[in-house]
């Protein structure tokens, strides 16, 4: 069995979460979501077309109406999937991209909410992606709600979160409860470790499964075509990945 890099597990998981999408968009500073989306596109190519818009890419971005077009396409219901990170994410899937402490003079300031306060409402399949899996990030309650996980009845809300992917695990989100359920644990990690590193309560099966790994064909697609496509927008990430692959062989 070929060894598989942790980041390849994440990329493959994102591709799995994107099954069936027609249009997926990737925001700023998101190499792993971009790679996962490119893998989905490559896997589906024989049977169906997946359209992909990667912010900051020239080759993988077909929008012609400026930076508003992404949001307009979401408002029109054309955008099936998007990714959000978060300095803090809580057990209700509320996302904080603004800062820690009392707003506005937060003690730690992050860049800001970007398009989250709109896309979380309008995109049906939002995947929360944050590699750091600690109690600092996955908190009981966020300090600032850039975008809420759920909305009361009567609020226009065709979109929302479906999953949370970290460097350790995959959670599914149930908006009826609302709350997360541990779906699978990545190789090399344990359910106990995840409980220790998670600051919010979540449901967990008695024996969680291991996160599925890509087969040889998928892996070669990932390390070939996807890696090449990704390098245009994320040269530093692609170089890192290549270095890690070289070290695997050595």
């Amino acid at each position, binding site marked *: 069995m070929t060894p598989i890099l942790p980041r390849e597990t994440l990329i493959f998981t994102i591709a799995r979460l994107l099954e069936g999408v027609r249009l997926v968009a990737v925001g700023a500073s998101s190499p792993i979501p971009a790679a996962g989306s490119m893998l989905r596109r490559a896997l589906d190519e024989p049977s169906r077309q997946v359209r992909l818009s990667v912010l900051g890419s020239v080759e993988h971005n077909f929008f012609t109406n*400026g*930076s*508003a077009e992404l949001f307009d396409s979401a*408002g029109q219901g054309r955008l099936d999937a998007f990714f959000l990170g978060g300095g803090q994410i809580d057990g209700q899937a509320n996302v904080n991209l603004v800062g820690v402490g009392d707003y506005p003079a937060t003690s730690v*300031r992050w*860049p*800001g909410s970007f398009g989250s306060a*709109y896309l979380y409402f309008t995109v049906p399949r939002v995947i929360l992606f944050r590699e750091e899996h600690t109690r600092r990030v996955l908190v009981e309650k966020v300090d600032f709600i*850039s975008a*809420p996980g759920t909305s009361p009845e009567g609020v226009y809300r065709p979109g929302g979160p479906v999953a949370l992917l970290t460097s350790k695990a995959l959670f599914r989100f149930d908006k009826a409860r609302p709350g997360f359920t541990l779906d699978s644990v990545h190789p090399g990690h344990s359910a106990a470790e995840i409980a220790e590193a998670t600051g919010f309560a979540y449901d967990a099966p008695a024996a969680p499964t291991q996160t599925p790994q890509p087969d040889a064909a998928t892996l070669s697609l990932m390390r070939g075509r996807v890696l090449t496509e990704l390098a245009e927008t994320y040269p530093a990430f692609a170089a890192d990945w290549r270095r890690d692959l070289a070290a695997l062989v050595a």
Partner: protein
Amino acid sequence: MQADLRAMAARIRPGMRIALPVDYAGVSMAMTRPLIAHGAGDLDLVCVPTGGLQVDQLIGAGLVRGVETSAVSLGEAGGAPRFNQAVQDGAIRLRDATCPAIHAGLMAAQKGSSFMPMRGLIGTDVLRHRDDWRVIDNPFDTGGDPIVLIPAIHPDVAIFHAPMADRFGNVWIGRRRELAAMAYASAETLVTVERIVEYNLLADEMTAAGTLPALYITAIAPAPRGAWPYGLWGEYGTDTDELIRYARAARTEAGFAEYMAQEVPA
């Protein structure tokens, strides 16, 4: 410093509302130092829809009173140090937004309407902290359905960088339509360009489609590599090493001052 850039900067008066584009759309970095040298302060910046190096430098230079933005960062180079410091110190009035709300405000101004309705936002702290936004019940619905109204954003001046202009004052913006949106909404628009061409951009349908006509443009000045260290679409890439160099230097006020005192490579 070029005389024409200085003359453009001199149009800025204290207290003005200035619209600046997102880092990948065409930031007129060439105007940053002339703006600082000119020194008109108490500026309210509108980031369309996010800000970066230019915003951070204007804040560091003490020219900024308020920032309306969906985010401020240096992208791969990390957080914007002078912005973050100013937030911590409570030195600037923050109007946190979300990208499509900025677009909606500009769109309202573009249409000559006083506001635009917009989905999303309900239940966010972004909305809770915006006393200038309103929530109404959708008047076309039979009951309920709250929707947010974003007032028109009317900047005094928009400033951006583009690949080319012609000698008739038309500016080619390609598919970066947010630059047009900024210009439509603003009372004045100042543009730096890589080059000025002799032929009329409107004479050929291929270039006319991506051209912002002179009607919306107040002044143009050539500034080769004028977006540096940012890249310019179709022209050159971002100099991430330089952004990182700035990010490190500007962690302290003294480091920022030292960085800004250095000559800018041509």
